[in-house]
Every structure is written in C-alpha cells, then in structure tokens.
C-alpha cells in the first residue's frame, strides 16, 4: 500500500503519523504490514471486507423521496488504533460523564437542585422539547436513567473532545462488531500479533446491564427489544442485538398492558415482560401519553413503567440531557454532582439564546458550525467555511428568527486516519462512538463505532451522507 502521496497537515492530528511523517509507536506494525502489501493485495482485502458486509446483509435504510433503499454501509479495511493509555483516558472520562448525566436526569425530574442552585438556567432544561413533564417524580432502579449511551468523540491536536452524548436510542454498536469480524479475518496475522482487545462480548455485557435494571424482585427477567419495525433505518442493528442478548425482537403491536403489567404475545400465549430495551423514540412509546397517533408504541406502557413493573432502557425523557443546549453545561454538571473536574473536554459551544453568543455567532458564521438543537444525524446544520455567502445569509435569518433553536461551535479540525481509497492510502476525517453501559456499575467494551468521512475534505461522517465505518483496535498494554 502506497503511503508516498499521503499528505500531513500541521493543524490536523493524524492518527497514524507523527508530524515528522514517522508512524506512531502503536501504529508501527500496521504501517509495516500495509507497506509490504501491493495495491492489488490491499484492494483484494478491501473487496473482501466490503463483500462480507454485502453477503451478510449488514445494511441500513435510506429514505429517498419515493422509496426506501437498503444500503450496505461502506467500510474501510484499514483499522484505526488506540493505545492502552489512550483508551484508559477515554474510559475514565466517559464513566465520569455518564455518572454525572444520570445524576442530572434524576435531579431535573425530581428535586431540580441544579436549577435551584443556578448552575443551569431553568428555561434551558424545561424549555427543552425533550424534557418530559410526564417523568417528573419518577424513580428508576439504581438511579440509572441512561443504561446505554453512545458518546461521539473527536480528536484534535489538543486531545479528545466530546462532540455529542447520545442518550436516547444510540445506534451503531452492531457495526463495531461487524467491522471487527470483517477486518480481523482479512488481517489475521497482524491482528493476532497486535494484542487487540476483544469487542465480541458486547452482547453479554449488555445483557448483564439489562438484567441489573430489571424491576426489583425479578431475578430471571424477561427482556425484549422493542423496534419500530423493519422500515427503521437501524433495523439490522435491532435484529443483531436481539440475537446477541437472546431477547425477543418485538414491535409495539406484540406488547400489551394489562392491570399495570406489560405482556408479550407469543405463540404460546401472553408472557410478562420485565425489561424493554427500546429503540423507539419517546414520542412514539405510548400513544396514551405521548403522540396519540403513534402506531409504534404500547398504550399504557408509561403507566406500567411508573408503577415499577417494567424497566425501559433508556428511560423516557433522557433526551433532555443530550440536547445541544444542555450539552454546554455538562462540565458544570460534573463539577456540581461529582465534585470533580471533567476528564474529557467539551467542544466550545455558543448558545444563541444568550445575546452575546448570538452576536458572536452571527459575526463569525464563516468560521463556525451552526446546529439546530433539535436535529441530529448531520442534518439541519451549516458548516460556515464550506457554505456560500448566500447560504450563510439565509441561515443567519433563521438564527435571528429563533435564536434559542441554535448553537454554534468552532469548526474542529477532526483528526484523520489513513483509508484505502482507490488503491492508495489517503487521510480522511474520523470520529469515534464508544458505547457506555450503566447498570449497577459502568461498563465499557474496549472498542467503538469509528465513523469516517469518506469524501475527500468532508467533515460529515454520517452514513446517510457519505460516511462509512472503520474498525477500531484498542491494544493491550
């Protein structure tokens, strides 16, 4: 594999190379292995990896104007590598962050001490569309509102930063495992000698977490995975996870509530359900409480949940903690609840609801990323440096009209990692989504869904917008 034309830029962190062009210590074996392979050999590895996804039907669904299209997520065969030290730093930082977020959720739906003490303005929390009044006064087992969290991390020359916490229905973990399976069999000798930490036991860890979150007194809980159905873009992942944890995959119509308990229809009759790993958004969970037109949910589910007869993972209302405005206050939450300094930094964030931040944002649109607080998946945002003056002006009008709906952040020079592009090694921007599980304790499988912006120069890593995946190897010490 030819690294001759691989370009390094001083202001962008390269995952494989030091600024002087020599490979980093923990990348040396990979570099040497790839350097010894011809373009044809690497091409054949790439083809094998891609084909394995296609053959196994590892797909996601993209919705166009007319019809849904089942697509294979592009995967790059060159793994990204983290050293043991780098991973430990992430692990402790993510654990700290999720503990604080769970404390925050428990607080804002109960005493609201953080608001009383003036750490977070009341309107930021209660004005957030994801704040669910219906959850006020709720208590959850072990104080765990978020049992499964997918945190998006990026790296710059200044280190790792948290880009976003996904606390509702984070997805992508199936690709972490599928990427591993595809890549390790293609680079088998290197994989064996590299002492890579395993990720394949994620299902067992998830099952243990879900069991721990079961209602009190249910020692052998019945766990189901609630999917919106086959047309959901992440349906493959739902099937995969149901299989991994040995749970039934159910849709709303398969469940019913009777006398405050949830039951699943089976071919042998009704069976009581104790834990629902739900992949359905809050809005659609229970038509009696949230959207009344929902056909995806279960009437009466929230009632059963609040009576403590069933666990919902994640709990309804967790979206308030991953709102883009609330995100700016996570470092303060960590200080407030844990009395610790944050181990992982946030990206500097300007809340347009504040007049001074609005002014700064509008004055510096050409150098900022502006995001709508309610959007995700890379939609509805403006990347200032890449936008035309007309697009910036049009966007500015929207910001002025509803400042509270927007935040802005500096355009981060996301780190780059080598990818196999048309037979050559080329740098592409990457991010990282590790999955943090919180039952009685926090557990993190040493791996992540590593996303890569496959278009040259692009910073958008979302699979629906030209992004792909990479395997992430965490090395043992």
């Amino acid at each position: 594999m030819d690294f001759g034309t691989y370009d390094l830029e001083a202001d962008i962190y390269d995952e494989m190379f030091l600024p002087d062009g020599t490979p980093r210590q923990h990348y040396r074996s990979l570099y040497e292995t790839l350097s010894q392979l011809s373009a044809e050999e690497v091409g054949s590895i790439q083809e094998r990896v891609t084909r394995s996804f296609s053959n196994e039907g590892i797909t996601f669904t993209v919705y166009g104007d007319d019809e849904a299209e089942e697509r294979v997520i592009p995967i790059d065969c060159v793994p990204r590598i983290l050293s043991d030290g780098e991973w430990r730093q992430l692990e402790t930082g993510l654990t700290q962050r999720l503990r604080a977020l769970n404390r925050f959720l428990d607080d804002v739906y109960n005493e609201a001490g953080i608001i009383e003490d003036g750490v977070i303005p009341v309107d930021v929390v209660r004005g957030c569309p994801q704040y669910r009044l219906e959850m006020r006064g709720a208590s959850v087992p072990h104080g765990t509102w978020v049992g499964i969290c997918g945190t998006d991390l990026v790296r710059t020359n200044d280190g790792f930063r948290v880009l976003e916490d996904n606390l509702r229905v984070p997805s992508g973990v199936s690709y972490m495992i599928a990427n591993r399976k595809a890549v390790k069999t293609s680079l088998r000798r290197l994989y064996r000698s590299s002492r890579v930490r395993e990720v394949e036991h994620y299902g067992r860890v998830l099952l243990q977490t879900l069991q721990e979150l079961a209602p009190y007194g249910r020692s052998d809980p019945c766990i189901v995975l609630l999917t919106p159905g086959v047309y959901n873009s992440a349906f493959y992942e739902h099937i995969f996870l149901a299989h991994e944890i040995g749970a039934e995959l159910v849709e709303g119509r398969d469940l019913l509530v009777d006398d405050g308990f949830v039951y699943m229809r089976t071919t042998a009759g009704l069976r009581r359900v104790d834990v629902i790993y739900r992949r359905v958004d809050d809005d659609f969970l229970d038509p009696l409480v949230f959207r009344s037109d929902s056909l995806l949910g279960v009437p009466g589910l929230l009632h059963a949940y609040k009576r403590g007869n069933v666990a919902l993972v994640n709990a309804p209302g967790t979206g308030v903690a991953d709102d883009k405005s609330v995100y700016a206050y996570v470092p303060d939450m960590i200080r407030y609840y844990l009395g610790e300094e944050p181990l992982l930094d946030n990206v500097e964030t300007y809340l347009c609801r504040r007049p001074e931040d609005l002014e700064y944002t509008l004055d510096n649109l050409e150098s900022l990323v502006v995001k709508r607080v309610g959007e995700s998946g890379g939609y509805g945002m403006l990347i200032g440096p890449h936008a035309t003056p007309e697009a910036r002006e049009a966007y500015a009008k929207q910001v002025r009209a509803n400042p509270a709906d927007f935040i802005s952040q500096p355009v981060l020079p996301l780190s780059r990692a080598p990818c196999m592009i048309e037979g050559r090694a080329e740098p592409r921007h990457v991010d990282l989504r590790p999955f943090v599980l919180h039952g009685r304790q926090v557990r993190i499988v040493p791996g992540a869904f590593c996303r890569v912006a496959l278009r040259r120069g692009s910073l958008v890593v979302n699979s629906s917008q030209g992004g792909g995946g990479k395997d992430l190897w965490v090395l043992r010490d």
Partner: protein
Amino acid sequence: MGRYLERAEHLCRLLRLQVEALVDRPVREIHFGWNRIYLSLDRQPPGGSIELFGGDNYTLADSYTLADDLTFERFNPNSVWSCFALGRENARQMRHCISAEMWTCLNLAYLRLQTLSIQEIWRVSPENFYTETASELHTFVGVAAATMYRDEGWHFWQLGRFIERVQCVVALLLAHLAAGRQMEEFLDEDWISLLHLRQAVDAYNRSYSVDVQPDQVLDLLVTDPLLPGSLWQSLDATAEELDAIGPGPSAHSSAVARRLAGRLCALIRYDWPDREGREVLLRWVREDCRKLHEFVIAAYIDYPVEDSLLR
C-alpha cells in the same frame, strides 16, 4: 418465509420445464404449458390471453414475455423475483430466529438474482438459470435442516412450506385439468410433463409402467404416501407440524385447525374417488387449505387476548 420460498421453488420447476419445451416441443404443447402455468397461478398473462395459433417465432417471442412476467416482474407478487424478495424480507425480520448460515445462504441467492434480468438469462440458457435457482433453494432447505434449532420457529416454517406445497399441487392439478378442457383433448405428453413438474416420472415408472394412464398419474400425485410432495405426504406433514406446535393460546382455534388438517388427510386417504368427482374433491382441498391457513393465524398469531389472559 416458508411459503414464499416454496412457491419460488415450485415456479422455478414449472418454468424450467416450460423453457426446455421451447427447444424441441410442438407449439401446441408449449401453449398448453403456458396455459397450465397461468391457470395454476390464477393470473392473466400480459396482453390478456395466450394465442393458441402462431408460428414458432411468435411462440418464442411470446414465451420471452411470459417468462419475464413470471420471473423478474416486480409488480407480479408471485414472480420468482418477488417470492425471493418477500421470503428474504421475512427472513430478515426474523433473522434472530433462524441460523446465520440460513441467512447467508438466502441472502447470497437473493443478491445473485438482483444482478440478473430476462435478457441476460435468455441469451445464454434460461433452463440453467431456473435449475440453479431451484438448486439454491434446495441448498437453503438443506442448510436449514442442518443448522436450525428445532423450536417453534422451525415448526412454523415447515408448516408454511407444507401448506404452500399443498396449495401449489392442488392448483397445478386443477389447472392441468382445465387446460386440457380448453385444448379439447389431452395428449400423453401433457401427462408426462405433469409428472416431470412434480419430479414423479421415476416413481410413476416404478409404481405403474412407462405407459402413461391419466388416472394413475393423478393417483400417484395425490395419494402416494412415498412420493415427496404428493398431496398425501404434504397433508400428513402439515398435520404433524401442527401437532408439534401444540395447542397455543387459543385452544378453540388451534383445535379447529388441527381437526381440519386431520380431515384433509382423511379425505385424501379414504375419499379419493376412482374417477368421477376428483376435480370436486381437489377444489374442496384447495378451499379447506385456505381456511387452514386462516385458522393457524387465528390460533397462534392473531388470537384474542382475552383467551390468553384466562389461561
């Protein structure tokens, strides 16, 4: 899944023999074959009806259109393509209930089908295409037999296959008789091709002789307990699968379903007439088999919740 894939396999067999006939069989036989296929599917051919009198070139051009309609037509829910797509979609939805090997096997066959078109298969050898596709489905069944856990998912899959098989066989036999009436006469070749369609030529030769007698052909396809895919065997297997599944939450509906399956077995075993009334009995079987499907759904899938809460 079981029903769609069984139908796809049945269709591949019908079409393989039909396109083989294009090589050397008389135009009349080809017309008979197409009529029989379309009648068995209860579908109008594209363009309305199949012209009975046309030259060789016309017959070949017509056959190309008909084969496309039954193989790659997306809007025909019973084309090979649609059956594969729907069967694979079902498998995708219950991927956690089937083995990984089954899924990969089916997905690979589906992906191959995506790359083909009628132009492509017609240019080389359409027979090979149908043979290979049927063979992929046989492989799938073999892989399932070797790898799938024998829980209720297995029994429901088998049940679907056997109900579909009964319906395919009955529809084919009724269509054969109707096509013969349209032609105003049967030729021996029509009965031989019927045996071929059910892979029963060797069994017929062993049980009877090389001399083809229409009544004996029907006897074999309906009442032979040793012939794979005979109505006798398919109905027996249906009843066995229902027994294996057990009563289910709706005791009434499942009892009705089991009783009906048993009655269908008995009908074929003891009431198959010597000559007159065979077509009437086949129509009963067709209708009862449709009801059986509905009873199964009512007993195990779409049952009233009250029944279950009482248990």
